[in-house]
């Protein structure tokens, strides 16, 4: 019995980790600046490619993954400075600008690198409970997702940067008047968002085929999680991921991946009819 229970938890953890890791970066950028980064998938792709490249050079996997996340974060800061910064007053145009960027990056990668490169293989290691075997790496991914949420909690609730960031989020003009450098805070937040996207790619790089268009496999999950979650990462994205993971897990188990994804989409369309501003709007209102 406990083996079955663990199996259910394992499947839940697998989907939950995927949703959190793919959506966290997008949610931070949306929560802080009200911008949806359409090049989110390309930051994920960047993280994955850097990881695989470094591992092939002989760098140990965890260090390669950390460096990949850092690279994506730095590129994110540059992108914010060069492009996104101009569009904070025009959120729809920021959508278009980042989409243009995404097209440029994906297709240039196809031109330069070619359609696919050889992967590095999922780290070995599995364990058995009852009659079932489970992959250890999937639990590592779950642990990483939880760590990301904890890290975000600490960053935004316990540090000086967090206080300034939340002040900027609530009222940017007032925060600026009180001396917060909102431009820098936006740049750092965008960098964190891009870095988390890179981390997502880095963590999933060993488990999937690397192609320049791989970002597309993550964007649906990240979009719907942010739509359901709303503007707050901790109070929105996390509960949304729990909720969607339960739906997805149940459907995956009975009907397979694609029906799971379709079912999740239908659930999201039903939810926005009731909660157009996402789960966090309800939770935040209750909290006040």
């Amino acid at each position, binding site marked *: 019995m406990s083996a079955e229970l663990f199996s259910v938890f394992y499947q839940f953890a697998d989907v939950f980790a995927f949703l959190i890791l793919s959506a966290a970066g997008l949610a931070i950028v949306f929560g802080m600046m009200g911008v949806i980064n359409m090049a989110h998938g390309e930051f994920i792709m960047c993280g994955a490619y850097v990881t695989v490249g470094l591992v092939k050079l002989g760098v140990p996997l965890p260090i390669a993954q950390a460096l990949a996340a850092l690279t994506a974060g730095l590129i994110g800061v540059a992108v914010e400075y060069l492009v996104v910064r101009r569009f904070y007053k*025009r959120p729809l145009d920021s959508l278009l*600008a980042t989409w*243009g960027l995404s*097209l440029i990056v994906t297709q240039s990668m196809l031109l330069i690198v070619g359609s696919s490169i050889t992967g590095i293989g999922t780290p070995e290691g599995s364990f058995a409970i009852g009659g079932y075997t489970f992959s250890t790496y999937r639990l590592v991914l779950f642990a990483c997702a939880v760590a990301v949420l904890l890290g975000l909690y600490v960053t935004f609730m316990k540090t000086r940067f967090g206080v300034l960031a939340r002040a900027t989020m609530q009222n940017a003009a007032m925060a600026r008047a009180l001396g917060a450098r909102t431009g820098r805070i936006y740049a750092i937040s965008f960098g964190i968002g891009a870095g988390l996207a890179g981390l997502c790619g880095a963590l999933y790089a060993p488990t999937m085929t690397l192609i320049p268009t791989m970002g597309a496999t993550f964007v649906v999950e990240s979009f719907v999680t942010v739509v359901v979650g709303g503007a707050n990462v901790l109070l929105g994205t996390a509960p949304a991921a729990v909720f969607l993971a339960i739906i997805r897990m149940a459907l995956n188990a009975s009907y397979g991946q*694609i029906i799971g994804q379709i079912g999740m*989409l239908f659930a999201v*369309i039903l939810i926005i009819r*009731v909660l*157009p501003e996402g789960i966090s709007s309800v939770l935040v209102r209750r909290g006040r």
Partner: protein
Amino acid sequence: MFKLLDGSQTLGRGPTFWSCFLVVLAAALIYPVFADSYDVGNFSYFFIWIFMALGLCLMWGYGGMLSFGQTLFFGISGYAYGVLAINMGGGSTTIVALVLSIIIAMIAAGILGYFMIWGGISGIFFGIVTLSATLVLAFFLGQTAGPEWRIGSARLNGFNGMKGMDPLAIGDFYIEGVALYYVMVALIVIVYLALRMLVNSRIGNVIVATRENPQRAEMLGYDVRKYQLLTFTIGSGLAGLSGALYTSWGQFITPSSIGLPAAAMPIVWVAFSGRSDLTATLVGSFLLLFGFQTITVYSQQAALVLMGALLLATVMLAPQGFVLGVGKLVADRWSARRQRSSKLALADTSRLQPDET
């Protein structure tokens, strides 16, 4: 009726504009006499996509709803045409299949639109929900390779796509080549003029009022949701028209016509052209399709990089669109030379600028 065609929501008015319109139309009509059949076929192919662009222009430029789901309805209708044409047999029934597939796309748009519009989502979320639905459809169709995925005798065939449906036909006469070209020109003229009349009608004024300020429009007593749903359904139905025509034109359709990067193309055409005017969209989309096709011959990736760069350049340099900007410049020069008061033109253009979208 002419008043509706020449109304204030569309740029390009008066005898000068309509003379130009007639000249271009006449040129389009005699073009097949001079060009070889390959070029005529190519032009028909460009025309297929124009409907989708005009639909997006209506939704985005006039209605203020940025839908990223044009290829969703393109795909629904394209696949529906395939399934219907294969199952109902060829001949004149293909016309019925075309009409039915557009209706199916419009019903799908009505359902999705109901949940989004009545849920009250707008702006950015409208875009990413429609895009999510689009990508999910593309993923779904991509894994329907097995023989169990069939509707009647039509196999969906996964990534390789569905094929084997008949092209549009009347009895034994297949609408191909020059005949298809003339059908396309006729359809474009009808759709273009009908949309002009729609946006200049009472309904069109409410649609534009909703774009400018939904609350104010609602306070004036209009149920804006109904108008938004109508706009979304018509715009998506035009994408459906493109989809069904595309399937009929090439006798195949694949999931790659739906997913990325195909989903970005209508956005690039309309953004580059100038979303707030139908004529600019018509002209700009045709130019972009022509250019894209020319470069695709050498490298499809390079063409797509260029499209991405154009989108980025448009929002950074000319958020209202390049073609529209050039058009206004020419029109202003023209009226200045004829010593008209240019204030009039400026007043008109400023009325067409949306607040923030």
